């Protein structure tokens, strides 16, 4: 027998009451393998105003490209203790920050490896269902062959690729632009 999925509704502005117990802004423990990166950005609405009541969740593979999930049956080591889940709220300036490790390459369609990426859900008042997007990494040659990036028209691909912040160590900038000029690519999943 088949059922129909329950409808999505907005998180509203008061989601901290339900979500703050599980805020995770540091994904990598000490001694964990992988390149340390901090992803920092802003969420901006159609008027260019910061969204101070958004929540971002991320899910990613470890440095070996392995997901901490039984659905990943690949013969690769699983980094002990790496959960791959992050959840942060924006501050009043629309800013969020996640300290993590650059993931390895996970398999994609046709067995072709995907470029390193983080999958992202965006929640906020005004969003009746969450938005889904991805974060890719700068100066990554495999971006050119990534099966998902290649689905996106070339001028918009840059919205999915974080930018190196000059003079910083491991700091990357990646913004969520909800509408208009530079609108982030969102996926229908």
């Amino acid at each position, binding site marked *: 027998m*088949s*059922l*129909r*999925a*329950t*409808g*999505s*509704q*907005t*998180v509203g*502005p*008061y*989601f901290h*009451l*339900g*979500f*703050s*117990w*599980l805020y995770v802004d540091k994904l990598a423990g000490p001694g964990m393998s992988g390149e340390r990166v901090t992803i920092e950005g802003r969420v901006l*609405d*159609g008027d260019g*105003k910061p*969204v101070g009541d958004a929540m971002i969740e991320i*899910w990613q*593979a470890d440095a070996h490209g392995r*997901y*901490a*999930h039984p*659905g990943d*049956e690949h013969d690769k080591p699983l980094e002990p203790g790496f*959960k791959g*889940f992050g959840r942060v709220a924006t501050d009043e300036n629309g800013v969020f920050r996640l300290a993590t490790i650059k993931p390895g390459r*996970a*398999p*994609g*369609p*046709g*067995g072709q490896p*995907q470029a390193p990426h983080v*999958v992202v*859900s965006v929640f906020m*008042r*005004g*969003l*009746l269902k*969450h*938005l*889904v997007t991805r974060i890719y990494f700068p100066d990554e040659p495999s971006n050119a062959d990534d*099966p*998902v990036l290649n*689905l996106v028209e070339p001028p918009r691909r840059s919205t999915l690729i974080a930018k190196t912040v000059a003079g910083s160590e491991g700091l990357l900038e990646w913004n969520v632009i*909800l*509408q*208009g000029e530079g*609108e982030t*690519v*969102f*996926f*229908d*999943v």
Partner: protein
Amino acid sequence: MAEITGYRRPHWGTQPSYLHPTYGSSQRRSPTKPLVVLPHTLSEVTGPLFGHDDVGPNDNDLTRQHAGDPIGERMILTGRVLDENSRPVPFTLIELWQSNAAGRYRHKVDQHEAPLDPNFTGGGRTLTDADGRYRFVTIKPGAYPWRNHHNAWRPAHIHLSLFGPSFLTRLVTQMYFPGDPLLPFDPIFNAIPDPIARDRLIAAFDWENTTPEHALGYRFDIVLRGRDATPMER
């Protein structure tokens, strides 16, 4: 490599569009460009998992988080979490948040002129059991004004958040109460196009779980996306 089984796209009418003009906040926060249709990869069919270590034994009882009893109509909320293939979703995290009985959230942004309840915070969580069942004890939330339109009042509702087995099964929804006269006027409730799908957001009064001299019972079943029968990725 192993074949990946994707997830079914939601059935027409069950999910809202991003832009729902009568819900004012959606106008400047919904994407304007078409979404890019994504094939489901290992990145999407996996997702965060949570276990019993993450949830405390009383985290599902919002009436026992303070020294005193919260004010309002005590209620026991139970239900099952199933997927579209009618299979229970066991051991999945459900997070819940809500206003107090007077329609006020314990949040600095909520300036609604209704009293805060010192004995009610309004947040809880639990895991479904092996059969996909869950249970919360809480207080029935109140309606509150929200300035979306003339005389706008949100119907009483409880926010619920679920993960399910993958990134694709993530769901945040709201549960409403049967017989609420505010429902026909609420643009958020009405953003679900199909009236049958909309009515599934309304809990049922549950006489079996109503306990004498203590609490009213409500039942709310939640259906998460189901997997496709055919592998998506070869």
